[in-house]
């Protein structure tokens, strides 16, 4: 008879992290969003208790390096105390520092792995279960941490590590490893962390990224939470993802073509879940383009109050009824502008970044644009083009 037990796997708690990408500067909202990660973890603790889980593993980035305060550490420590069952933590690139271990110690049910590989043998109702793990030694490491973790044959082994699996990410600074590195190591469940998007990379052995427990910016949309892993007769019988996020981020795309504002809002409302934070990408051609461009804030407020959602951002990819393409054919400044915008939009990423940050002082904010996706960068070009067209037409009467 192999082991029969349940455990909870979560990662990337990023407790204390503030949300980014919210254009509104509403203090309460910021507070509520920052608290939502704690709320999510507390629901994971509730889940562990209600599921009568035998242990919990946390695969790194419990804290956000720059946002870890005594208070967050204290609060997390209290939650672990409430958890009560054995809990194993491998530190990641954001929380490798091990602050306040002595002054705010974790309760006795918690084991934090050292940077060197560790193996902890447990007895769960008479069956041996092995927890392997190692922590990040520093903010960056190009060492393949996972290959140092080998399970014991005949024992159910859970390996806990924060790493960057090549199938999920190309980060070479965050303990890169290949999927093949994880197979044939007598490990039944690889409890990974680092990638915020949930994915089950392999089954038998299971290689799982549970994703983060709370979306932190518009790019981290969708449900977030933890896995309940059921082991039966020494094999993974079930992996159940349970959403626990406090606030849901939603990416919503809408089209203005043939719609007025109410039509647009009702299209958005059909997708938006009340209470979630939505980032909008609005496309299409129509008269609404001009209205949105003239007063996006009012439009955002109207969408927010009608859907009951927080609008974190709106990307306008709309155009007036007459297409810019039509304008390009004209022998006037507008056509020159459309052609020039097309040329800029067609620049490579680095050239585009240089085009945006061409002045010395702008070097100070280049990192903001460097952190944007290509689509976001192109949306800036598009907005610039639309702004010019509008203003020129406005000035020309």
């Amino acid at each position, binding site marked *: 008879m192999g082991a029969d037990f349940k455990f909870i796997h979560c990662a990337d708690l990023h407790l204390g992290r503030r949300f980014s990408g919210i254009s509104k500067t509403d203090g309460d909202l910021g507070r509520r969003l920052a608290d939502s990660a704690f709320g999510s973890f507390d629901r994971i603790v509730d889940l562990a208790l209600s599921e009568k889980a035998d242990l919990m593993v946390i695969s790194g980035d419990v804290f956000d390096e720059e*946002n870890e305060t005594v208070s967050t550490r204290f609060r997390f420590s209290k939650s672990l105390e409430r958890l009560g069952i054995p809990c194993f933590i491998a530190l990641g690139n954001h929380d490798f520092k091990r602050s306040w271990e002595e002054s705010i110690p974790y309760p006795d049910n918690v084991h934090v792995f050292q940077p060197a590989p560790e193996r902890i043998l447990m007895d769960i109702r008479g069956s041996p279960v092995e927890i392997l793990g190692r922590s990040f030694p520093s903010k960056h490491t190009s060492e393949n941490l996972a290959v140092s973790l080998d399970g014991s044959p005949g024992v159910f082994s859970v390996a806990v590590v924060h790493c960057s699996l090549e199938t999920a990410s190309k980060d070479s600074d965050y303990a890169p490893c290949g999927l093949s590195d994880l197979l044939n190591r007598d490990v039944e469940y690889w409890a990974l962390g680092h990638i915020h998007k949930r994915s089950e990379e392999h089954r038998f052995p299971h290689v799982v990224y549970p994703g983060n427990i709370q979306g932190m910016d518009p790019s981290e949309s969708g449900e977030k939470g933890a896995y309940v892993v059921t082991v039966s007769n020494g094999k993974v019988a079930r992996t159940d993802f349970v959403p626990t996020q406090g606030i849901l981020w939603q990416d919503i795309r809408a089209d203005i073509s043939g719609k007025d504002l109410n039509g647009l809002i009702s299209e958005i409302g059909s997708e938006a879940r009340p209470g979630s934070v939505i980032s909008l990408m609005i496309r299409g051609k129509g008269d609404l383009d001009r209205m949105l461009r003239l007063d996006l804030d009012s439009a955002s407020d109207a969408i927010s109050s009608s859907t009951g959602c927080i609008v974190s951002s709106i990307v306008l990819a709309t155009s007036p009824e007459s297409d810019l393409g039509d304008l390009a054919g004209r022998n006037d*400044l507008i056509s020159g502008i459309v052609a*020039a915008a097309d040329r800029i939009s067609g620049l490579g990423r680095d050239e585009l970044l240089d085009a945006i940050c061409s002045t010395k002082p702008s070097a100070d904010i280049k990192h903001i644009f460097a952190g944007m996706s290509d689509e976001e960068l192109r949306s800036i070009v598009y907005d*610039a083009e639309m702004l010019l067209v509008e203003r020129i037409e406005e000035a020309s009467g």
Partner: protein
Amino acid sequence: MRIRSVRIDSFGAFRNRRFDDLDPGLTVIYGKNEAGKTTLMEFIRCTLFPSQRRKRYPAPSKSDSGMILLDTDAGERIELVRDGGNVREADGGRLPAEMTHLDECTYRSVFAMTPDDLRDSGVISSGDIRRRFVIVPGGDSIQSVLKSIEDERSEYMSPEKRTGRKIHAKISELKDLDERIAESSSVGTDYSDLFARKTILESGITELGKDSAAYSEQRKAANLRASQESNVRKLSALRDERESLSASEAVMPDDKGTYSGLKTRVSGCRKDLDARIAIESESAGCFSGMDPDRFRSLSGKIKELVGKTGEYSELNRRREALSGSVRIGQDGIAKPSGDADDSGAHAGSRRSPVPFLILSIGMAMAFAGILAGIYLAAAGLAVSAVGLLLILRKGKAAPRASVASDPADERIRTDRDALADAEGKLSSMRKELDEVAGMTGIPRSSFREDVAFLSDMAGKAADHERVRRERSDSERELKNAESDLTAFVSRFGGEERFLELEKQSGIRRELDARISALEESIRTSGYEPSAGSPADIPSEADMDRRNSELSRELGDVSSRMSAIVNDADAEALLDRRASGRSELEGMARRWAVLSLAARIANDACDSIYESSAPDVVRSADRYIGLMTGGRYSLFNDLRESDIVVVSGDDRKREDRWSSGLGDQVKLSLKMAVARELSQERPPILLDDVLLMFDSDRKRGACRALLDLAEDMQVMLFTCDAETRDLMEEESSGKARMIVLDAACP
């Protein structure tokens, strides 16, 4: 497009005039005022470009008629026929589209200008010409749009400086926040320090509580001590005295008991021995100088003799009886001995000495055997026995030899034999007695008394031996007791030293008893003998003060710790930083949109400048260069709202132009625009536009016009002879001159 000839049937004052062989390059139409220059020019211009103007010179008339013959650049010949207010293209020829698309104002201002038209720069700096050449259509708003963009953009960030504007203000606000957050996250270190301090303070307070209780007791004790000072002094004196006593090995009460026991034992043993000695000496007195050991060693023999006493009396009586019978039957045969006890001794004197010798040797050997060993004694006894046997056999044999043969004799002989036998035996017994008596040295009397005496003495000797043994035991006992005593006291350096130590111990014990009695008495009064002076014990107020100091600090540390844990400020700073970053991102994005808008607009302008503006500007630049002898060049950009000329490093906007320079610039520009306005360039008609130029400028203008005439037809109408001459001179006579006769207006 070039005008080959003009025929005026009727127009103004002109009737039936022909102007043939017009130069495809430059034609100077010279005439004095009123010679009809303006009329000719007006005919050409309103035929080429029908005018809607009502007021013009000469005034329109229904009889206006004539014809202009044109060659297009494509080689087509067009005949424009004027008939009243209408102009038509004869024979299906068509005027090039460019002409039809031009508005009259532009045409007049650019292609058919008077000095007034020249000075009107509005046509270049605004309207269609500007849109098409100086800026592209829609480009007339570019300056204001660019300005509005730049204005908004510079609200966000200066293009040169890193200070003063929204973005850098936000960056520096965020930097400040970062610093404050770093400061506030150093509270993490503070928290650890506080945690350590708290642990110290808590244990300090616990210790202080314990100390406080102890001090309170000590204080009480110290007060008692103060009140019990005399007792304490006495105690102290006793302790000093006690302290001054030799620290050598103390004699313990047990030791003293041991010593007394040993002493008692020794004296008991001695007494016992004395008694034993007295008993022994009394016992020895019974032997009157005889050796008691002899009696003891002969006690067996003596017992035998005692056992033979009855036999001896019997034998004695028989001998008496037999001696009487023998004397009756045969006197003299046997002379009776006087005394039965002596007869044995007498009889012995008649026997052979050898057996006696053997007996003596045996006895001697037996005696020596007793002394030397049991074997020799046995041998001795054996030898004695042999001797005795021989004696006894000789005694028997003698009577047998004297046996009588007759019956009386026989009876006498038998009696005699019996007598001899009795006597023999008696004698033997006496001999035994003699021997024992000899050995013991007893005073002699009768056999019976001697034996009785011997028996008595043997009994006494046995008693004496017991007494002597007891005395010897007592001696040994005494010796043991004395040696035990000696061994005991030697631990202390002898008995004398022991006694001295014992005496000291006694004193110590007495002192200890007094000290402890005193201590006890002080203690029962509540006094702690070891208590210090009240001055040495921290006062209650001190303790309270220290306690409250520690408690205050603990409270402070705890509240600082809980402030750190519940540090809303730190969290608020993080919130502010997050929202500040969002704001910065929003600003940065807006700035980027504006920057890119400016970039796009500039790129568009550049590209338009590249594709169309340069020809106009390059030409204008060349013409101004020709006109000013290279002193000025034109600096023009779509993004410049004004036309700027450059002389060296000096850039001059219109407001700094002299009227002459202004005319030169405008003429240059209009010439350039005329050159570039369309593919099919209409002739440019200039009505005394150089009239106000000074001579140098005229010469320059002539050069420029000659240059322009290379590319398009130029018709210069002038009444100025200097202009005519200069043109002739500059063209080296190549310019076609038409002189209008003053007589023919």
